[in-house]
Structures are given as structure tokens and as C-alpha cells.
């Protein structure tokens, strides 16, 4: 995570930012995995009635999709907060393209 041109404080702020990003990503991926695969694996057993549907049918047809959208909304909001913390800790400044687009 070191950036040769940047002072140490900036680098550690950036390291913390990446660490937080990874942690959020991992937590949300865990939820995604449970909803997408674990619940689906046990679909036959999760057959109890739920608002008129068998539960696992509802999860595959609606519940899963709704959870996925919620995950993305949480991700966008949380990441915005993590980005603001980076700015507050003085680690921002990574604006602009890596390689300037050739014209």
C-alpha cells in the first residue's frame, strides 16, 4: 500500500481505507453467499409457508433479489462514509486517471 511520493501519514490513512473497504466487502459477500447458496442448498428443507409461498420458493423468486439490492444500497452508503473518513484523515488525493487517456 506504499506510495513512494506520499508522506507516511497519507500512506497509513490509505492503508486503513483499503482495510475498511476489504472488511465491508467480505461481510457483504458473506451475506450474498448465505442467501445465494446456503439457503438454496437447503431449499427442500425450508419449505414452510411464508406469506402464501413456500419459503424457499419465495427466497429464490423475490427474497434473494430484494436482499441483493439492499446489499448494494448498504455498500454504496457505507463506502461513501469510508471515503469521507479517508478525506478526514488526509489520505485523499488519488483523483485523476492512472494513465492519461490518449487523445
Amino acid at each position, binding site marked *: 500500500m*506504499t506510495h513512494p511520493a506520499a508522506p507516511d501519514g497519507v500512506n497509513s490513512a490509505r492503508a486503513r481505507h483499503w482495510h475498511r473497504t476489504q472488511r465491508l*466487502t467480505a461481510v457483504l459477500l458473506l451475506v450474498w453467499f448465505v*442467501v445465494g*447458496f446456503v439457503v438454496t442448498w437447503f431449499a427442500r428443507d425450508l419449505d414452510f409457508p411464508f406469506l402464501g*409461498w413456500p419459503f424457499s*420458493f419465495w427466497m429464490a423468486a423475490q427474497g434473494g433479489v430484494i436482499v*441483493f*439490492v439492499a446489499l448494494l444500497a448498504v455498500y454504496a452508503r457505507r463506502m461513501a462514509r469510508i471515503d469521507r473518513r479517508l478525506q478526514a484523515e488526509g489520505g485523499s488525493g488519488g483523483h485523476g486517471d492512472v494513465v492519461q487517456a*490518449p487523445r
Partner: protein
Amino acid sequence: MGIRSRTFAPARGRFAAMGGAAFSRRLHWIYLAFGLAFLAFVGVMALLEQLGLSRRWIGFLFLVGPIVFYAGIGILCRTTDPTEYYVAGRRVPALYNGMATGADWMSAASFIGMAGTLYLSGYGGLAYILGWTGGFVLVALLIAPYLRKFGQYTIPDFLAARYDGNLTRVIGVVAAIGCSFLYVVAQIYGVGLITSRITGVAFEVGVFLGLGGILVCSFLGGMRAVTWTQVAQYIVLLVAYLVPVAWLSLKQHATVVPQATYGYQLQKVIAAEKRLQADPAEQQVITIFRQRAAELDARLADIPTALAAERSAAARRISELKAANAPQGDIQAAERVLARVPRDADTARDEWTHARDANLERARPLAGMPPHAQQFAGDPHGDAATRKAFDDSRHNFIALVFCLMVGTASLPHVLTRFYTPPSVSEARTSVAWSLFFILLLYVTAPALAVLVKVEVFQSLVGTRFDQLPAWINNWTHVDGSLLQVADVNGDGILQLGEMKIGGDIVVLATPEIAGLPYVISGLVAAGGLAAALSTADGLLLTIANALSHDLWFRIVDPSASATRRVTVSKVLLLMVALGAAYVTAQKPGDILLLVSAAFSIAASAFFPALVMGVFWKRANRWGAAAGMVAGLGLTSYYVLVNQPGVREAFGITSPIQLWWGIQPIAAGLFGVPVGFAVLVAVSLLTPRPSQAALAMVDDVRLP
């Protein structure tokens, strides 16, 4: 037209001056006006229908009207600036990028095919809903923000910058063109089908008419024009999908939002399934199909004798008729029977085997459909055979979900859309909007499948043949592969087993099933066309850009001027489009089969290299290249050796050998992990990536 021409006029300076919020507000007004104009258009068409305008004209206007509209946007958005042409100027607000991605993503298969698949396979079809939506979680968490931060033009651009040079770029170009071309042929096929069915022109003419609709958007304005037409197309396809479903639900005395309440309709389906399975008339139909299969089996046991017997019986019948001075029509019919007797033993074996399988197919309970709500086939507590059926079905469901998810996160034409928002955080928000807009349709499709099933099981089955509703007659005449009914057991009443349904009819015929005026059928056709056109636009652009930007500009002639790059891109786009239309006009059944594998192919080629490129600094060019080739190779091999249609096309005769019973459609289940493993192993065995590559990783990780 006034507002739009001012907004889309090629004046970048004014956009730069206009704040993001003002631009968004302006877009809200434009698309609100578009939505109202579209509803007014539907209203006028309904009025014209009342005044006696013929169906053919209504269908024609529903195809041409929206296309003229899209073309108008395309012309207003024409551009020669590379940033405008490749990534729409990078100022598409999150909400609108979400709608454009929704239209880009939802193809003819989503719009027309999915409800049909759900109708025919019940819970098994839900793998598509879960997979195609869950993939966007991967897009948002692992790929989209980093691509946006990188901020170039194509997916191979990313691979080349991260993995030091053009090796991964070339592999990426090959994979991107391969899966996008398969996909675009399927879209143009859908366009041709809808156009020819609604207007009555020949399929090939329909293909080239539709091609005109695709080209006016992407040719003049590239990504910029495609973006703003895709937003309009999203509005059209959503309205066209939701209106008939809400109406059908009202007709069944349910709510206007069947999505929230169709659980109770599902209970009716489950009850009807029990009743139909116990019904003696249904069992009679099944017995008849079994007998027909057994009879064909007997013939197959001794083909030469059976063939001779059949030929002499037909000849005898003709001479009998002639001797009895029967009417000429009867004699001609008998002669046709003789002409249809297979020429030789080989043709006879093929034809009869095929016929036997078709009869066995229809000799299954509930016309071959599994009970709608039953999760997986077989029974975990039954005997060995049903236990194996259960395990196979469960494994394949999970594998398919996995491949569709990872494939969604790897399709270049979808990922490119996330280069277009103005910032990294807007890119994140726009994935959430994309999935929300996709959800609106994907939550409706399973509801529609259940509503149509209620209609068929409760009202249609058990009707007397002379009282069948008009839509049955209409559709059996249009296309026998969509709908066939025959009174197999001769009791004058329709049984479920006597109907053979093709999935596509579920969406296409919903307006008629719900008893809606023809104008709604036209609306559905316009929606299907919008879905196919928007996806085809995005795909063609991806292919042409891979060729012009990645191959020609980046490798062959890096000194080309900006305008020249765009011109080359447009010429290539035209050539690719004509090539795709030519392939489509041959009606290639084999290619359509390959499309189902496009997700697995994209997944194993791109996913490991894209994700590891951001999350593992040690990944280097040799590892990425080896991983991409290994994943791509393994998946293609598995599809080639095991997919029946592909085997036939390439003349492969080795026995089908499935690994752990996984179907070839989910080949990515093997390709993706192997791609990851090879990438890691080869990276560790070869030198570290360059300082430039490491700096790039640091940079894309920052917002």
C-alpha cells in the same frame, strides 16, 4: 423535440458548465416527457383500433414508431469525440446509468424467454432469477468501482494496464468478441422473429429491418447515443411487461400487484396439479403416448421389415382408393403418406427414434412439467434412483446459479457501462440502481408464470374442443413449435397432456389470454423489440470497440488521431453488424445453443483476472494470461464435448462424460476455479509485477 435537441446537442462545454444536479433535473423532465409521450402513443393506437385500424397496421406502427424515436435520439447524439463515443462523456448520472444498464442487460431472453422457462420448469427456472441478479453483487463489490477509477475505455484496457502489456489484452479481446458475438446473434434472431411475426415480412427481411434500428443508434453516436436510447428502451420494456401482467391479475380477481400476492395463486396451482395427476382422462392420454412410443420401439427393433411393411401398406391404400374411385383429394393425401415413408433404413432409424423420444417426452405426468413449487427433482429419502435424481438436480441448480452470477460479473458489454458515471461513488450507486430496475421485471416474471398456469390449469384444461378460446387457434396457426393442441384420446375435451407449449408463448400470448385489445399485443412486441435492440446495441459496440480500440489503435497504429479512431470504430461496427445479421439470417440453431454457455465462457475468461487484478498485488502478467487461457480452454472443452447441439455441429462422437453430473451449461463451475488456481500458481512461479502495475493497483483502490 425542442427540449431534447437542446440537451443532446453536441456541446460539451455547456455540459461541463452545467452542474451534475442541473443535468439530472433536465434528464428527469426529458424522460418524464418521453414516458408520457409513449403512453399517449399507446392511447392513440388504442383509439385507432376502436376506429377499425387493421391489426397488421397496429403491429407495424408499434414497431416503427419507437424505432423512429430511438433513431431521433441517435441522430441528436452523433459524435466524433472518443470520450463521448466510447464512454458517453463519463457524465451519466447513477440513476440513468442504472436504467441503461437494465436495458443493456435484459435481453430478448429475459423479456420473452424467462417467464416461459419459469412456466415450464417451476422452481428449477428460478436459478436464472437468483443467478442473474446475484451477479450484480459481484459487479458492485469486486469490479465496477475499480474499473471506474481506472477510467479508460474497455475491459481489455484494464487487463493491459494491470498486467503489463498486450498479452492479456489480446486474450481479453478474443474472449470478449467470442462471447459477445454469440450473444448478439441471439438478439438479432429475436429481433427478426418479432418483426416477422408482427408485420408478416420474411424472417430475413425482419433481421435486416431490425439491424437498421440497431445501427441508427450505435453507428452515429456510439456509447453516448446507446446510453440515452437504452434509457428510453428501458421505459418501453418495463411498461410493456407490467401492464399485461397487472391486467391478467385483475382478471383473476387478484390485486393489481400480483408480485406481492401471487403466493395464493401458487397454492391454486399446487391444488390443481394434485387434481390433474389423479385425473383418469390425463392418465389415458399418457397411456396413449406410451403405446405410440412402444409401437415405434417395435418398429426400431427390425427396421427393414417395418419399413417394407409401411411402404406396402401405403401403396395398397392408394390402389384401394383408386379401385373404389375415391375423390382425387383422398388419393393425393394417400400419395403424400407414401412419399413421407423414410427413404432408407438410416433415415428411418433417425426419424423413428426422434418420434419415439417425442412421444415418451409427452407421456409424462403434468405434460412433463415438474410440480411448480417443488425444489429440485427426485426425493432425498427415496430409493437410490430418486436420491441420485435429487442430488443431481440440486448440484446442477447451485452450479447454474454460480455460473450465471460470475458470468454476469464478467460480460464485457455490461461492465463497460460502469465506465460512464461521473465518479467512483456514482458508479457504486449506479450498480444498486441497475439491480433495482432489473428487479422490477425479474420479480414480475415468476408471478406471470404462475398466473398463466392458473389460467391454463383451472380454465383451459377441461374445456370442450369446440369451445376453446380464440387465442389457442391464433397461436397454433402462427407457429406449431409455440403451441399444439390435439384431441389425443378423442373425448372432445382438452387435457393438459394434449397441449404442447413452447416457452415463448407465455409472454407473447398473455394479452390475449387476459382478453386485452390487440393494441396491448403490439405493446408487448414493442417491449420485446426494445429489450433485444438495447442489448444488441451494447454488444455491437463492445465488439467493434474491442477491434478498433484494442487491436487497431492500441497495437497496430497507436499514433492515430482521435477522429480517425472513431471513424475506424464506426466502419468496424457496420461490418460486425452486417456479419452478425448474415449469420443470423442462416437461422443457426447450433449457435443459439452455444449462447447458454456464453456466461460460463465469459466467467472463466475474465472473472479471475479482473478480481485478482484489484485484490492481489502479486498477480502478474504470466499468471493472468495462463489463468485466462486455462479457464477459457477448460470451459470451451467441456461445452464442446458435452453439449448435444455443439457436438453435432462439430461432428464429435465420443461418449458424453459429465463430471459429477454437471450439465455443460454450468461448465464455468470448473473453468472459474481452475482459472483462479492457475493464475495464483503461475504468478508465484514468475517475477513480481512491475512498479507501474503496482502503482495502478494502489490508485484504483483509492476512491
